[in-house]
């Protein structure tokens, strides 16, 4: 692990999302909410979701405390799931997860091309396996919410 890896992890975009998280705050009229909980470090996020009549994600927001990676990732997550169907959110999470673990690489072009391009900035966590959980915490929560569970726990 080099200083270059570190700089790659903590890119400007991520630091910015950490300092100025998008869609931060409660949604009082959320259709679904779920907590994301990393019991090993104590990080906890809550994700709020509103679906419209067509079951598309209409609004999404989050609150909570966590490291730069989990906050930045949550913030970015809120910017890409809006307007998606339940299935699309699940698929996108799957792709994002692979991006973080290094299972998929940049070449993949498909329906989520734009979203993945945005999220690619998080792929620096590949070099830091212990931090993958941080990057995916909010995604676990949004997946739980959308699938009507209360809590998501990452390890």
């Amino acid at each position, binding site marked *: *692990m*080099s*200083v270059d*890896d*570190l*700089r790659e*992890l*903590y890119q400007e975009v991520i*630091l910015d999302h950490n300092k100025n998280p998008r869609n931060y705050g409660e949604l009082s009229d959320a259709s679904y909410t779920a907590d994301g909980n990393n019991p*090993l*470090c*104590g*990080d*906890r996020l809550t994700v709020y979701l509103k679906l419209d009549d067509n079951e598309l994600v209409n609004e999404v927001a989050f609150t909570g*405390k*966590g*490291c*730069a*990676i989990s906050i930045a990732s949550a913030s970015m997550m809120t910017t890409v799931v809006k307007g998606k169907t339940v299935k699309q959110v699940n698929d996108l999470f799957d792709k994002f997860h692979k991006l973080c673990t290094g299972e998929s690489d940049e070449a993949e072009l498909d329906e989520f091309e734009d979203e993945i391009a945005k999220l690619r900035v998080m792929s620096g966590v590949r070099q*830091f396996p*212990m*931090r993958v959980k*941080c990057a995916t915490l909010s995604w676990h929560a949004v997946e739980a919410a959308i699938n009507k569970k209360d809590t998501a726990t990452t390890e």
Partner: protein
Amino acid sequence: MNVAVAKVESDSTTFNIEAIRREFPILNEASEKNSVHFLDSGASAQKPDYVLKKMDEMYRTGYANVHRGAYTLSQLATDAYEGARKTVATFLNAESVDEIIFTRSATGAINLVAGSFGRAFLEKGDEIIISEMEHHANIVPWQLLGEATGSKLKVVPVDQDGNISIDTFQSMLTNKTKLVAVTHMSNVLGTIVPVRQIVELAHANGTAVMIDGAQGVVHSKVDVQELGADFYVFTGHKLYGPSGVGVLYGKKELLNKMPPYEGGGDMIEIVTFEKSTYRDAPTKFEAGTPPIVESVGLAAAIEYIENIGQDNIEIHEDNLLKFATSELQKIPGLSIFGLSERKAGIISFNVEGIHSHDLSTILDSRGVSIRAGHHCAQPLMKKMGVEATARASLGLYNNKEDIVALAEGIKFAKEILT
């Protein structure tokens, strides 16, 4: 501060930090991947060559199951295992070797007390007092016991500096208090708890006391007879011994009144399908094949630190703690949790605007290993109003360079993240 450290290093011919560091293989395997500034001994300590060789040798020359064979190898293994029990008994100054039970870990030992003593002697409405700075290992077993028996948990609060008030503690003792279970030393704040006083007050109230010595035994000399506690538990891997072994010390009289915790081979006297009878402590509490080589490894670790001298280790760590505290306090935005007058080799802290997780990752890139998180003490985190802290914890092998690397690393993290 520098002076003090230099002093102990030159004063004491027995404590040569550089020589000691060479005895810990992992500190010398300075590959790119491995940290050499190991500051997470509070989670688990590294092991000296002496301990590793003892265990390896036993497997190579004197291993068999214990207690069960009438042949030489089994006798050798049994002697080594029972010899380890003797070493632990002497280390703690137990009255009898029968007061030492080998368990799988400190957690295993606490659960044994909860499952045997707790289930046998606690009833609905009875109370257990713990402190607000307990490790989950000394909280959850009592909650599980509470679910089984209806006993209740009462919690002595911790103040700003990380101390508990003895007056408050005393006022919480009632005729329903059947057990006091407190840590000897906080794994987050470093606070050394006045356990001697606690034992006296509890005993005056007719209440039994269990001390969680997982951290305490590492940083100070323990004399269970002087302390007077009914139970004292610790774990091998934090004391420079192997994983997979812990110790429960218990007063013989009490142990022999307690029912077995787990059932199996060795702990029995006579087994019939109708009824079984059990042996006395410690055997009654060691069902099945024990952690044979691990216990021998733990005894080797005890020999190792006794050879260096626990007093010398204490002085060294104390000086290093003072040095670290003053170095960290120089860093703007850094605040330390736990400022008790009586504390030992642990510093928890946070840096403004930086989450401890990020800090840990960045320090790791510079070979500095610290821990970030709730340290298995969520209730204490809540009380302190944080989700997590960074924690540097000292071992006998740490030196000033480790602390300097820590401080420099924190400054570097600030550069990167702010």
